[in-house]
């Protein structure tokens, strides 16, 4: 091997956590075999379930605590409920969830308008920082966007002209 150094005195703390027992067969958990008794531990008290909580069908219950950040709602919520019929190993679980996320983005924009707020997408995307630190890249992105949009518009208008003739 190249550059194999033997003196590590310049590296503060070299070897102080070395553990010869830590080979691949040395478990990193404090094994107790308690899990052989199944789901038998004394559970913490249950957080009141006063919102809709979707739970994996790979467990029997809602965990003792859970987050309340964004309960399922609207069309995206319906898709999420469908997804949770399937197990965590199934694409039928994850792909609808990804779809629900995209639907949820549209719902978010509509919700902003409903509340009288026009989302400032330029600011939300950190446009100010990009302009300050990477103006060239930003101009490039805008130019590519303009070219793509122009090409699409030109293509569509040519098609409509040819279908008229």
């Amino acid at each position, binding site marked *: *091997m190249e*550059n194999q*150094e033997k003196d590590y005195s310049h590296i*503060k*703390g*070299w*070897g*102080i*956590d*070395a*553990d*010869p027992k*830590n*080979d*691949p067969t*040395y478990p*990193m*958990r404090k*094994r*107790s075999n*308690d899990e052989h008794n199944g*789901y038998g*531990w004394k*559970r*913490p*008290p249950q*957080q*009141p379930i006063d919102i809709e*909580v*979707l739970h*994996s069908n*790979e*467990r029997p219950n809602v*965990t*003792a*605590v*859970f*987050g*309340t*950040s964004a309960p399922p709602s609207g069309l995206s919520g319906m898709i999420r409920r469908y997804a949770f019929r399937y197990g*965590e190993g199934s694409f039928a679980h994850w792909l609808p*969830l*990804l779809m629900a*996320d*995209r639907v*949820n*983005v549209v719902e*978010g*924009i509509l919700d902003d308008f409903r509340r009288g707020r026009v*989302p*400032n997408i330029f600011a*939300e*995307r*950190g446009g*100010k*920082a*990009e302009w300050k*630190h*990477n103006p060239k*890249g930003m101009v490039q992105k805008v130019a590519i966007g303009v070219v793509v949009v122009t090409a699409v518009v030109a293509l569509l208008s040519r098609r409509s002209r040819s279908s008229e003739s």
Partner: protein
Amino acid sequence: MLAMSYRGPQRVRIDQKPMPEILHPQDAIVRVTRSCICGSDLHLYNGNVPDTRVGETFGHEFIGVVEEIGPDVHKLKVGDQVIVPFNIACGECTFCKQELYGNCHESNPQATAVGGIFGYSHIAGGYNGGQAEYVRVPYANVGPTVIPDWMHPDDAVLLTDVVPTGYQAAEMGGIQKGDTVAVFGAGPVGIMAARSAWLFGAGRVIVFDQEEYRLDFVRKFAQCEAYNFKSIEDPVVFMKKTTDSLGADVCIDAVGAEAAGSAMQTITGRKLLLQAGSSTALQWAINSAKKGGIVSIVGIYGPTGNLVPIGNVVNKGLTIRANQASVKRLLPRLIEHIRNGVLSPRQLITHHIPLEEISDAYRIFSDKLDNCIKPVLIPPSARI
């Protein structure tokens, strides 16, 4: 209160949100004094993690002051300044009893594969995170740890995830004295993994990334070799050549789903979402490891599947070790290392940004602008 609000892929903003409340007898409410944006937050930011809902607040790396406690909280008191590990752990289930605090079975109803994590979508329990002024912290007797008086808050906030994750990456590598360790990724976690590898007695530490400023930093911070994979034709061949054609004893994937370096992986994993992110770093790690070697994974991937050369894992007899860091288990040792000057994580922090400028902070970190390595967000109430 002010809190970050996810609006869609690459769209975040600051909104006024209701104050969090005690919802469980073991809850605490923490006023945030510092929070970070983590590399794994970028998976959420880019819309790559399923069940990331509009309106959620991200942020699993934060410290703060205890403002309120539930009736069953007895290990903390109001006014305590605390490190809040990113894992939400009950301390009672069979996995917590084994100190697998990242695998708690009583904190995430939505998925059994991972325990609860602050601000990490509904795949990790649906909790609001710390990129806000206040946070609800469940199981406050278990995770939160009082910050020692002598500790700098910038060191403390990095103990919530980055330092333990990097350290555990090296620990899972089962490094033996003299081992060659390859670290893929010179983000904050990769940098800490490289630094930690020496603590376990590594004989040689080699880091790969594509950002020159990060490579420069890791060379100095971790006193290791560092190479730009863009200037190397094939990092795997490079690793073989530099190890007498054998490969590294230990390879660490410290990147996860956002990995660059392979157009095919980028397109299928990051653009089309046909995989759970790009697994280029993991592929390199597997292929660069010596026969009988160990691959340690701390890079985060989505829940579906990835293209990895599993045949090579079998044929080379590799051991793969992976997990979310068990922060609570590691904190005592890491606090000791900081106190003794062995580790100085706050050197990683390049940006202190007001919480109100969250959209710009994400853009800077995501696009690696302004030589950003680690941004810290400061809420207005912490600036008074």
